Structures are given as C-alpha cells and as structure tokens.
C-alpha cells in the first residue's frame, strides 16, 4: 500500500512539475505548481511529517501561490512567445539535463542501502515524531535563536516589499 501511494503521488508530482516547465501561460504554470505541492504534501504525510503537511498546504499551496496568482492577474501576463535559442542549447540542453538527473538520482539511490538488514525503508506510521507538539518543543528550545532571527528576516521582507511596491510620493 505504501508503494502504491508513493508511486501514484510521485508520478503526479513529476507530471505536474513537467507541466510547470512546459506550459506557455503563467496561470497554468501556477496551477501545475499547486498540483506538485499537493502531491508532495501527501508524500510528507507518508514520511510522518504531519505538521509540515499542514504548513505546506496552508502556507505554500495557499498563501504563496495566491500571491503568485495575484501578481499574474495584476500584470495581466499573457502566454510567452517562443524565442530562438542558440544551437548549443538546442543540441546539448536535453542530454545535459538528463545526465544531471541521472547523476543526482544515481548518487541518491546509492546513498542509502535498499536491501539487507541495514536497508532503510519508509513505512507509514514508523515515525510519529512530526506532530505539532514535537515541532514546537524543538522550535522553542533547541532552535530558538534561528526562530528569532527568522522574525527579523520577515520584518525586513515586509519593509522591502512595501518600499519596492509603494507609489512614489512627490
């Protein structure tokens, strides 16, 4: 059952990711990206990350993507026109990307053993330390300083966004 869900949602994630790259219109890209994020949320759930699943759905697929769609709507962005690329990119682009994916995938697959008694496997319910309680405990004890620094980062981001997007006053 684990394998079935993994394969199903991994396929959805990859298909939506390819759609993000291939779609011409930005709004289609945004919706495909939401699909990828939703599929990844299910995979996070299989890995036992309950809190991160909710954050992924609410913050990522919800808030950030709404921001994207909002900007696409504001700018009235149309489909992008195809442009001629250099012949190097035309010939070597796809093989180079396939090589990168193959290399990364190979190292990832050989990083952890798949068979034998030391093989590492993911089974739903193996790891239950990803709830809000455990996250909160770790966040406010061990990771308190990064948490506080994050608040400063967000303050700077808010100020930056306001300064960039405001109307020039005479």
């Amino acid at each position, binding site marked *: 059952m684990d*394998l079935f869900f*993994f394969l199903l949602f*991994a396929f959805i*994630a*990859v298909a939506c*990711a*390819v759609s*993000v*790259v291939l779609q011409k219109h*930005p709004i289609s*890209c*945004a919706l495909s*990206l939401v699909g990828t994020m939703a599929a*990844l949320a299910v*995979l*996070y759930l299989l*890995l036992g*990350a309950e*809190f*991160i699943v909710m954050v992924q759905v609410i*913050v*990522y697929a919800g808030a*950030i993507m709404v*921001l994207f769609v909002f900007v*696409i709507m504001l*700018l009235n962005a149309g489909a*992008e026109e195809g442009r001629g690329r250099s012949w190097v990119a035309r010939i070597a*682009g796809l093989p180079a*990307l396939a090589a990168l*994916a193959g290399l*990364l*995938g190979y*190292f*990832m*697959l050989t*990083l952890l053993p*798949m*068979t034998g008694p030391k*093989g*590492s*496997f*993911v*089974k*739903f319910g*193996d790891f239950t*330390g*990803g709830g809000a309680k455990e*996250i909160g405990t770790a*966040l406010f004890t*061990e*990771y308190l300083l990064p948490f506080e620094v*994050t608040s400063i*980062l*967000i303050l700077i*981001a*808010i100020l*930056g*966004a306001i300064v*960039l*997007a405001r109307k020039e006053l005479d």
Partner: protein
Amino acid sequence: MDPQAALQMLHKGVPTSWYLALSAVLFTIGVAGFILRRNIITVFMCIELMLNAVNLSFIAFAHEHKQVSGHLFTFFVMVVAAAEAAVGLAIILTVFKNRSTLNIDEIDSLKN
C-alpha cells in the same frame, strides 16, 4: 533481484532512497525550467519547485534518522520562501511598472 526479495522489500515499505531520487528528479526539472523559461514569473515558480524538492529530501532524511530537526529546517525553508516570494514579486511589479515587460531577455540594462 529475485521475486522473494522483492516481496520482502514490498512488505518493509518504500526504500528511503526512492524519495531522495524523486527529490533529485524534481530538482532537475526545476533547474530545466529556470534555464529554459523566459517569463520572469515562471522562472520564479521554478525556484519554488527547487525549494520543494530540497524540502522533500530534508523530510526523507528526518524520517531516516528519526529526528525532528529535518522538519524544522523545512519549516525555515518555507519561511524564507515566503519572504522571498513577497520581495521577489514586489521587484517584478516594479520592473514591470518601469519597463512594461516580463521577458528576462529584455531586462538587460546592466549589460555593458
């Protein structure tokens, strides 16, 4: 792999490395979009795709080591992504206001 071992593997669950390989594939697709696309908003979305791929490997490692630290890193990555989206989209708005284009090939005033 003989059928007996495959059946045993199925019983034990999905290998953790498959999650990592999926993360690698998603990251590569994100890189491809980042390089191929010409619309600045879509380029931005491909960056988000790469961040998501990295998050997946963080969570897979958290499961592997049965530690919650990976979840916290993912949490911080999401916070940084939110801040980045806010500032980046503000920059895109400003660029569009000044130049009326979203094509990254035409935004080259720093060149020469």
